[in-house]
């Protein structure tokens, strides 16, 4: 009897090393890459895989440009796959990393990169960017492997810098296409009542007050993302949010408490609502019939979602109102700060440096080719990441120049996104930065709904402390 139990445990003991091996055998734990002496071999066949979240219409654009890419590099086969949402991409790759079959390239957000880097799986791009190795392309032209100074300068700086926000000084991603937050406003309504479009938060408060007087049943402003709001305010006030090194979570400070308290007051007065608090995208309120209760006249939302901000058409086929788009309100209008979001591309470690370089060439191609950036922008409504895309003649004549508050609202939002090019900031990224993001979003919701009956200041203070504690636990 005892013997058989013993046998069972022996069997288990035998299994142990097997699993240990299965767990870590085929992964490389190096997190560095340097371009080999011999450079990239343009003769050798290589296949790379690319995970993204593109819908069918964007995949079309991608396929088109893969063909163009292959005209330059016929030896590189690009296979790509739509994995689902951004979170799905992250989860899939995270599990694949543990067995070493991660893709070569993937759509990424900064916190994804930080997560992958726990397993030291992402290739630092510095050596590739700096490389001056020359390679001959199939069309006869010669090209350096790295980025030229012109190419680097062509990137919108705020977008480019996002790749180096990891606290170790290395560059881990290149931006592919970006969106930002913009202020949508009901231009017809503003014109009719002689209202000024607010450029600062103080002006915003005034405008809300005036709108409330005109239409007491409305909620003048909808702000979609509570988290973006918090993070952007930290940036605008130059108060602390997070840090990639040392103590990560720094957002519990007086400046932040002050602005949260102020906006809570707005919420309580019925000036503003948010996505979570209203139970849906605030564009629903913006496009709602103004005769109904709870509609709004301004909306701060993603520039990529402009088509959702279009109102219904009336019986004559005209839009019920005209939409205006502008930069979101600021603390200091002369030093604007706006968030940048949307996918970047990162490259994963592979044993073959040939694969890594092939991946780099493709990433470089997508991010620095103006035609691709322009086409992608037109199809997706995202802002191109390089300035030269805006010079593309087709893009100009068929998109940007048509921008209006109706059918071409998407072009208008991209235009605003391009114009505020100097205002983009990036937040530090580390394993846990997404926790901070989630927590400050919840924090805003919690604080806004604090009842005025009790001690508001104490409740807000406690909410901040709780959020910090939650971050510390999740990331620790």
């Amino acid at each position, binding site marked *: *009897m*005892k*013997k*058989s*139990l013993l*046998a*069972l445990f022996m069997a288990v003991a035998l299994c142990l090393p097997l*699993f240990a091996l*299965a*767990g870590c055998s085929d992964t490389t734990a190096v997190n560095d890459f340097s371009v080999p002496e011999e450079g990239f071999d343009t003769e050798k066949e290589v296949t790379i895989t690319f995970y993204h979240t593109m819908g069918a219409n964007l995949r079309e654009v991608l396929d088109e440009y893969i063909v163009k890419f292959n005209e330059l590099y016929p030896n590189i086969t690009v296979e790509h796959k739509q994995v*689902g949402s951004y979170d*799905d991409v992250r*989860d*899939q790759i995270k*599990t*694949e990393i*543990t*067995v070493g*079959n991660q893709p070569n390239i993937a759509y990424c957000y900064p916190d994804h990169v930080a997560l992958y880097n726990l397993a030291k799986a992402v290739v630092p791009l510095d050596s590739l960017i700096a490389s001056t190795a020359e390679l001959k392309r199939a069309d006869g032209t010669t090209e350096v492997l790295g980025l030229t100074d012109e190419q680097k300068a062509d990137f919108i700086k705020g977008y480019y810098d996002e790749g180096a926000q990891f606290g170790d000084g290395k560059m881990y991603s290149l931006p592919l296409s970006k969106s930002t937050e913009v202020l949508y406003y009901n231009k017809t309504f503003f014109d009719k009542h002689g209202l000024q479009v607010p450029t600062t938060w103080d002006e915003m408060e005034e405008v809300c007050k005036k709108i409330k007087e005109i239409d007491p049943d409305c909620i003048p402003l909808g702000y979609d993302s509570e988290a973006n709001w918090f993070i952007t305010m930290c940036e605008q006030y130059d108060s602390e949010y997070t840090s990639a090194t040392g103590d990560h979570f720094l957002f519990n400070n007086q400046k932040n408490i002050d602005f949260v308290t102020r906006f809570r007051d707005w919420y309580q007065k019925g000036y503003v609502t948010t996505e979570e608090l*209203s*139970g*849906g995208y605030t564009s*629903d309120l913006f496009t709602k019939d103004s005769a109904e209760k709870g509609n709004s006249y301004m909306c701060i939302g993603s520039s990529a979602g402009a088509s959702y901000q279009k109102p219904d058409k009336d019986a004559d086929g005209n839009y019920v109102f005209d939409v205006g788009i502008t930069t979101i309100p600021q603390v200091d209008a002369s030093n604007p700060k706006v968030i940048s979001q949307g996918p970047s591309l990162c490259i994963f470690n592979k044993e073959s440096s040939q694969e890594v370089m092939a991946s780099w060439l493709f990433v470089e191609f997508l991010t620095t080719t103006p035609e691709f950036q322009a086409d992608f922008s037109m199809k997706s409504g995202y802002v191109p990441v390089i300035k030269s895309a805006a010079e593309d003649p087709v893009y100009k004549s068929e998109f940007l120049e048509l921008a209006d508050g109706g059918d071409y609202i998407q072009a208008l939002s991209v235009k605003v996104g391009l114009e505020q090019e100097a205002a983009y900031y990036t937040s530090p990224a580390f394993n846990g930065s997404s926790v901070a993001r989630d927590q400050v979003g919840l924090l805003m919701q919690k604080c806004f709904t604090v009842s005025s009956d009790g001690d508001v200041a104490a409740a807000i203070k406690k909410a901040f402390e709780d959020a910090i504690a939650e971050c510390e636990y999740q990331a620790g």
Partner: protein
Amino acid sequence: MSELQNKTMQEKDLKKVSAHQKVGKIVVKVLLYTFLIVMALIVIFPFYFMLISSVKTLPEYQRSVPTLWPEFIRLRNYIDAFNTGNLGQLFVNTMIVGIVSTILSLVITVLSAFAFARLEFKGKNALFAALLGTMMIPGELFTITNYATVNSLGWMNTYTVLIVPFLVSVFYIYLLRQNFMQIPNELYLAAKVDGTSDIKYLWKVMIPLALPTLISITILKMMGAWNSYVWPRLVANEEEYQLITNGLRNAFTDAEGNANIPVQMAAVAIVSFPLFLVFIFLRKYIMKGVSRSGIKG
């Protein structure tokens, strides 16, 4: 027992119950039935609500004074639900996983139960006791490692990952072993003398005799596939391999705001319907299986 001796005598007395005792009895009966019927109505109310809501139009559903019977029966909700949730694919996936895992699980269970019930080998009792011991441990404890294991085996998002980890149920082995033990050993020995192979004997004698138990296991296993949620959610999130419950919860997550609840209820009804069908036809086996197992699937 002296009471029993008195029984016949007393029975005569009982027949002479006074009129007011009879009234009391009727009152008790009325109370009993009232209680049971009220409880039964409460129990079936959610089903009724699901069915009527599933055929209402959205405006009718959202009325502040609800209608108890839909004014207009909108069957389109069912089509919408089917399309929104991609229920067809989910049905197919669930059936594949359910059928394959049931068959494999039955084979493994029968073989193991046979070994434990009929064959003699060293350490049999100890091994059996050890198996029963594992039943005490909550399954969540296994999940953490199993997640890592299937990941390192490269099984993520496959049918395999939905089938293999749960093929062995110690409880079913136990159940079937008890059943096999009731079959007289003489039959087996006689078969041995005739030179019948184990497998043939199993197939010809044991399985037919234990059929009710096997049917119970089959139903519970199929219901298990139909209802499983947590494990598939962890390991098979790709739509290609999603099971019905996950698909249902994912496709209709918006619990607030503008959710089209009638369509959602139609989806729930579609998912619930096969279960009811199985229940109607196989009530006896389900109730028997459940009363012995106390587990869902």
